[in-house]
């Protein structure tokens, strides 16, 4: 911070220029845990299951894990957006089921081509989001209530759309291909290398610009370390997945959504306004931000992403049925966001928490199925892990309050 360093008499609350490690430690102590609890939980879970069953960290199982995570993770991305706003969407599970049902009925019973049916399914989600968002913003009904009504109502719509037959099989190659396609190693590594190059270029150019503008910028060796870690993570992941059937397209779709919405949230005016509304809606309104437009759009996005997740579920099961989108889908999606470190109280969190949290939850279910424990244990373990992660978040919040940050 050399730019403001005209050395005024230091005030009591001014922090000394902290070193990198010191800054990190201080952030931890003040409760800015970020993704740390989730990463820790993930490491513990993986270690425990690997000990219990040596197949857990096999390429085949990790490939399964990625495919299993895709649908819930995608839905959870939308949940993160809603949580950032300080709202809730309880209808995402049913919306995912209904959208997938619309897609399937159009494709199977009306002979609409797969890609068109997929788009129609996604549009169904968007329309539902528009309706719910309109209701919330126009009439000022709390989102909890509107989406709770949605949770019940869209279930009815799902039953109606599926009609008398109950379960409908999907045979369309495009729809099934969403989760049934695995990228060849060449394509997989190509995408991985491209991602690393773009990431590195972005970091380096950003750093150059900051330096040129006379702003504090990370030293080049720290950038190199970051790029190295990301490159290693990406390439190892691709290597492991390629040792099985290749990178699952579904996993790529999830990561694509996460990256896209992460960029939107962090790098665009829209994302900035989203955080502002979640942090202090009145302040946002006074700053001239159309709070209702932001709210409405976020509910549209959440339902649209729910629809995408529902389509991935259907693609994986080759079918939709009356229980599509029911059961644990909603709870998993919300838990994923929270375990990943997104606050339930609005304004804090990252889109990546959807991915991370979904991995944690799915790892538990995956591992427990692998050792075929009874569902009694499964539910209790899942509950305990969620409680653990959210408790860390709550303790962190206390830390923030103690240090005057919340």
């Amino acid at each position: 911070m050399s730019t403001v360093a005209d050395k005024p008499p230091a005030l009591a609350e001014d922090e000394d220029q902290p070193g990198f490690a010191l800054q990190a430690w201080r952030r931890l102590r003040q409760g800015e845990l970020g993704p740390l609890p989730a990463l820790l939980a993930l490491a513990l879970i993986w270690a425990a299951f690997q000990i219990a069953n040596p197949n857990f960290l096999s390429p085949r199982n990790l490939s399964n894990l990625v495919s299993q995570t895709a649908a819930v993770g995608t839905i959870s991305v939308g949940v993160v957006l809603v949580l950032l706003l300080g709202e809730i969407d309880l209808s995402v599970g049913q919306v995912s089921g209904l959208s997938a049902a619309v897609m399937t009925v159009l494709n199977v019973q009306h002979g609409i081509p797969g890609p068109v049916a997929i788009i129609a399914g996604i549009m169904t989600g968007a329309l539902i989001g528009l309706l719910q968002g309109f209701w919330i913003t126009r009439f000022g009904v709390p989102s909890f209530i509107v989406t709770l009504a949605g949770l019940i109502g869209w279930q009815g719509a799902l039953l109606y759309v599926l009609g008398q037959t109950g379960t409908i099989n999907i045979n369309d190659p495009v729809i099934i291909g969403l989760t049934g396609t695995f990228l060849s190693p060449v394509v997989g590594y190509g995408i991985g290398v491209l991602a690393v190059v773009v990431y590195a270029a972005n970091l380096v150019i950003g750093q150059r610009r900051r330096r040129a503008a006379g702003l504090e910028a990370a030293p080049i060796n720290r950038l190199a370390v970051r790029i190295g870690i990301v490159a290693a993570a990406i390439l190892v992941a691709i290597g492991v997945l390629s040792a099985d059937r290749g990178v699952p397209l579904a996993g790529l779709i999830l990561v694509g959504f996460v990256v896209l919405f992460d960029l939107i949230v962090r790098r665009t005016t829209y994302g900035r306004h989203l955080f502002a509304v979640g942090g202090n809606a009145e302040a946002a309104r006074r700053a001239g931000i159309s709070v209702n437009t932001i709210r409405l759009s976020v509910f549209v996005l959440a339902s649209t992403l729910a629809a995408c997740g529902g389509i991935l579920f259907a693609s994986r099961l080759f079918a939709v049925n009356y229980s599509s989108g029911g059961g644990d889908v909603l709870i998993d999606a919300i838990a994923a966001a929270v375990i990943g470190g997104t606050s339930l109280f609005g304004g804090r969190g990252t889109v990546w928490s959807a991915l991370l949290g979904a991995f944690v939850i799915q790892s538990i279910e995956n591992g427990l199925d692998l050792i075929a424990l009874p569902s009694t244990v499964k539910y209790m373990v899942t509950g305990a892990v969620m409680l653990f992660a959210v408790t860390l978040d709550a303790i962190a919040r206390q830390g923030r309050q103690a240090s005057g940050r919340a």
Partner: protein
Amino acid sequence: MHKLRTLTLVASMGLIAVIVASCGGSSTTGSTGPSGKIGLLLPESKTARYETKDRPLFTNKLKALCPNCTLLYNNANQDSSVQQTQAEAMLTNGVKVLVLDPVDGKSAAAIADKAKQQGVPVVSYDRLILNTANVNFYISFDNAKVGQLQGTSLLTALGSKTNPSIVMINGDPADNNAKLFKQGAHSVLDGKVQIKKEYDTPSWSPDKAHDEMAQALTALGNKVDGVYAANDGTGGGAISAMVSAGVNPLPPVTGQDAELAAIQRILAGQQYMTVYKAIVPEAEQAAQLAFDLLTSASASSMTNGKTTNNGTADVPSVLLNPVAVTKDNVKTTVVADGFWTKADICTGTYVAACTAAGIN
């Protein structure tokens, strides 16, 4: 504010119109014959059969037997306390016979006892009401037999394989019938096959079944000779998991319920069998039982002296036989009964399979 009030008004008027219209349908006509109210309580709406098969079949049969009778209907959506409330409402409305498919067999005993106090006979429909003497009839399929049927079929499909490995995907651990299916299957399979992995599937969720099967395949390195799936939904989940994992050819997979999707999978060679429980006789005979109780209140001849012990009493029972359906007898069972028509089954990619199975 004003707009909101108008909106509420319009919404309430719409609601009233719907209620009036639905009441209008059940008004009695002036002709002679027996009359009275009969209550039908079904447990849930997520499984296709209750709303699309049981209810209309029961309604039509009752109308044929007794044009002046009124049917009161309600669905508990898988909530036993909701069902209790619905039953109390029906008793208050003066039903003469209660046909009850309990969400939970044990807690439904309270409903049966209450009905008895008011002199209303109770038919336990499809699922058994447990631990009460106040059940007049029980009509269902022999559920332990369902599991045996599935197990026997699977053994047939496995043929001469020595010591085959199978995966068992059972139903909802909270469902009493699921327990019976599981016991029945074990009684046939144990000792003849190696059960490598076994799962209970909460809520009968096909997605969960998919995950369970995927994990079993990982643990077993894709080496599976057969899959016991308790119903068609979980069977579908297991099949999609095997296709994703690249298992080829697919091993035999069992099922139950004769869902349309399962029939189509059977014709396409993906699923080996399903258990067809002919809902038509079940619903129609339940209507007959209800009508008998309404008119004479005496024991029906339909039971043939059979009883089922519910923990407290031996309940006179009508037990129907489940049928195993494979590719070979789809035509002579579900199609012949009109359970599913050719138009239902033979759509899109299934036309060729239909022709091959002689459905045309």
